């Protein structure tokens, strides 16, 4: 039986691909979590700013969930994203094969799908509140927040996908 042997350059190439794959996953996972929790904090700010009538401090502070979790998560994921994204960008510029690799394109495509699903499942809930006029302005602002945050993410992903396909 002939066992195919890998030479040193193939092994280092494989290690490089795994490292690139891990970098892509870390960058986009931290980005996804950052966007979600930034939106959670934005919703809380909207709720507090648009309280329907004058409330005591205790009432105002209890209008929405405590943002400690979101802030703690953001304190971790934001620097992780910025570092990983910078490293990823450098890798993409130095190694164009990574840009049109199947794994990178697959991750981008999955993120596009995830973004669409997030928007499609989140916005109808706010639209119901908006149309029933229970919290029209706050619902409108929350829809605008989702549209801005995930719209920017979607535009970036499409831009990156275009580059990948065109290369």
């Amino acid at each position: 039986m002939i066992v195919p042997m890998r030479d040193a350059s193939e092994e280092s190439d494989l290690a490089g691909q795994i490292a690139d794959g891990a970098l892509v996953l870390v960058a986009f996972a931290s980005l996804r979590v950052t966007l979600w929790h930034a939106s959670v904090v934005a919703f809380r700010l909207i709720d507090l700013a648009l309280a329907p009538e004058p409330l005591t401090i205790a009432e105002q502070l209890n209008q929405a969930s405590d943002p400690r979790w979101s802030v703690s998560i953001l304190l971790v994921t934001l620097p992780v994203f910025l570092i990983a994204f910078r490293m990823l960008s450098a890798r993409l510029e130095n190694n164009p094969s990574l840009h049109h690799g199947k794994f990178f394109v697959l991750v981008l495509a999955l993120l596009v799908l995830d973004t669409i699903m997030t928007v499609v499942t989140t916005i109808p809930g706010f639209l119901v509140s908006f149309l029933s006029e229970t919290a029209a302005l706050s619902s409108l602002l929350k829809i605008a927040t989702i549209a801005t945050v995930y719209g920017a993410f979607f535009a970036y992903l499409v831009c990156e996908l275009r580059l990948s396909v065109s290369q």
Partner: protein
Amino acid sequence: MSDARTTFASFVAALGVCAIVGGFFTMEPAWIGQAQQTDLQRQRDLSAIANAIVVFKHKQDNLPYDLSKLAESPRPGTAPLALSDPETGQPYDYTRVTSHSYKLCAAFKLETLPTPTAPDRTPTRGLPSPWTHSAGTHCFVFDDQSTTPLPDPTQGEARS
């Protein structure tokens, strides 16, 4: 970095920093959570005292003249009554109003938060919980048959 990546990374960085600053700004101070817990304990204590008074009334056919009588009365299978404030240690204020009613007072840190009301439950609006209280010293009036306070006609007025 390409322009699109630079722009997007800057957008996420700005969004994240704003969210962190905004989150710190809107965080509930720790003392509010502690004060809510202590107020809840005060309410539980008053409820337990009212319960003990109902039992006392059934046994003695009379309301106690002070809370120490209540502590002396045996209540097998129940936890010892907390007759004083969990924070200050001051005894709860008990006053007989008539031979069939009495009032219990406690000093609350915070005003009771309104119970969330769904839009389809509008009939319950305007009917606050009998345990609704303002911040500061608040007295609940009870009759000798019930462990929940009687509706307070002065509810909504500021007290201190």
